[in-house]
């Protein structure tokens, strides 16, 4: 019985687990760097899901091309996000997200 890895449901479950871990990390952690990494985890889980569904429906390659664009957007997002982290660190000397309270006063 070679079943593991040949059913789309297994990939969907794995992607859901990865997405959940990323979301919990984003919500629980206070470090902005780790929060950005959690966002990357969630994007990767979505990519895995898109590619798995594209493997199921092999009429075209739209799912893989969609994942390709998501990778490009994620790279741009990380570049800008880390620049914002650096600016935030210059302002506050900290990378904890609850220090970002400039708008409160």
């Amino acid at each position: 019985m070679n079943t593991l890895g040949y059913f789309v449901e297994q990939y969907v479950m794995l992607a859901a687990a990865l997405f959940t871990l990323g979301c919990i990390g984003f919500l629980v952690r206070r470090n902005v760097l780790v929060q950005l990494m959690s966002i990357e985890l969630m994007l990767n889980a979505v990519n895995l899901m898109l590619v798995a569904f594209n493997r199921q429906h092999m009429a075209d390659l739209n799912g893989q091309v969609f994942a390709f664009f998501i990778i490009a957007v994620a790279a741009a997002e990380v570049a800008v996000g880390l620049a914002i982290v650096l600016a935030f660190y210059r302002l506050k000397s900290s990378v904890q997200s609850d220090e970002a309270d400039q708008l409160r006063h």
Partner: protein
Amino acid sequence: MTVGNVFFVVASVVALVGALMTIASRSPIRSAVGLLITIVGIAALFLMLNAQFLAAIQLIVYAGAVVVLFVFVIMLLGPDAGDGEGTIARARLARYGAGAFFGFIALAAAHLVSRSELVAHRFKVAPAAHGSVEGIGSLLFNSMVIPFELATALLIVAVVGAIAVARGKPHVRRESKSASPTARMFHGPLMARDAQRPLPTKAERAAKAAGGA
């Protein structure tokens, strides 16, 4: 167990362990290594799903660029990149409560799916061209050419924006510490040489404009 089964199980476990390491490590450099492990595991799963081109792109872009960028920033920040000392107890309760709530929702969804009577979908045999560079390339440069070009524009704008945001103003740090953070960020002259110079009056500016023209 065939080779494919073992490959899938190992890659899945690697990805999950890396994800756990990312969100649970105290030091951000370990989180970055966990992200790297997850990315390698997902690239292996892409190979399993006939997405060879995406597996290569995943390794080049994520493992080669994104994780390295994270490591550079952690290195720049030094020991300050770690977790600070304690926070407000109420805020901590809110964070952990939100995380537990989302985890509970995910578990409930998994339970509902496991109880439903869905038919499992086994993959059909894929044609050799599925996921090849030729297939993705012909799609990217024919019907998807406009999104592709827009993605290049997005990357250029992102790089310029990242430089503009991260560079900052060099004179700001030399000012007194007593100024508020907002004042340090937004007020004061743009160039250090203008610090002692009074602003020109309206008549002076008009005369200069007339002289220059």
